[in-house]
């Protein structure tokens, strides 16, 4: 699985993403700087976490206007798999590749802890190695993870089965107790309509080795590897 990782000033999770990809696929990803205008021929493009451009103006806003973004649009339009994690998800909404927006957490806190997720759709290229309704535990580390979309957009997202992960309580119930940041419909991860672009706030790339407390994130990358193979 050939992978490119896009890096902006302030990105800080590119190493974690690269380690996860190499651990699962055995192939080192290519790092692409935001001022480039071409992305190499790859199976997967990752926008990793961090605080691109210091979160100035709005989270992800400045990164989404970088020179590399035109190339990202071209790749995404031809069906190349695109994965945005945390700040990467925020950038993808700012580019318009994913609908809605990520706003300040409901309780204004920076949340840095493990949260529970339910896999609500395992028929996507990002989630096929999970069981439907599987309860998994991922870390989150964000200040602006509160997913918002207007009623009409939300209806389309739900009708098209674009939601992949929802925040849940430890028993797996999708409710207010299990919602750390106020996201509408407990949305933690979602795809675009075509299904080749996904964004999620939690960090699967940090749970690929038992040494780090679990391997719940591994299946996400194995899902992608299964498709690329």
């Amino acid at each position, binding site marked *: 699985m050939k992978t490119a990782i896009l890096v902006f000033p302030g990105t800080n999770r590119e190493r974690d993403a690269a380690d996860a990809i190499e651990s699962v696929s055995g192939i080192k990803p290519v790092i692409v700087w935001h001022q480039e205008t071409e992305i190499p021929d790859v199976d997967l493009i990752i926008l990793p976490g961090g605080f691109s451009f210091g979160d100035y103006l709005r989270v992800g806003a400045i990164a989404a206007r970088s020179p590399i973004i035109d190339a990202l649009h071209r790749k995404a339009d031809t069906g190349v798999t695109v994965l945005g994690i945390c700040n990467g998800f925020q950038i993808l909404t*700012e580019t318009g590749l994913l609908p809605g927006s990520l*706003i300040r957490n409901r309780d204004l806190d920076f949340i840095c802890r493990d949260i529970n997720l339910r896999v609500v759709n395992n028929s996507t290229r990002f989630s096929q190695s999970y069981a439907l309704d599987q309860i998994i535990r991922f870390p989150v580390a964000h200040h602006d993870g*509160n997913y918002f979309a207007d009623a009409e957009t939300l209806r389309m997202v739900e009708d098209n089965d674009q939601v992949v992960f929802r925040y849940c309580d430890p028993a797996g119930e999708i409710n207010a107790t299990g919602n750390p940041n106020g996201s509408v419909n407990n949305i933690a991860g979602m795809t675009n309509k075509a299904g080749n672009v996904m964004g999620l706030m939690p960090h699967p790339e940090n749970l690929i080795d038992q040494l780090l407390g679990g391997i719940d994130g591994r299946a996400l990358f194995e899902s992608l590897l299964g498709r690329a193979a």
Partner: protein
Amino acid sequence: MKARVLITLKTGVLDPQGKAVQKALGTLGFDGVDNVRQGKVIEIDLTETDETAAYAKVSNMCDKLLANTVIENYQIELLPDGT
């Protein structure tokens, strides 16, 4: 001339910062505060002297970068030099 852009959250978009400010106002003893919404102001100095052209330019800036129209509205105020 100078352009002043006022960016506010659309109705229906949760504003946790506005809520926190509202609560703090209550703590300070200010009563009768029904709601607080927080936004931002961006001031831009332009070389353009024609108001219509300046307005069009700043509108385009708002649509392309300054505001995220998924969640925000913007208003543009033009301030001719010397005011």
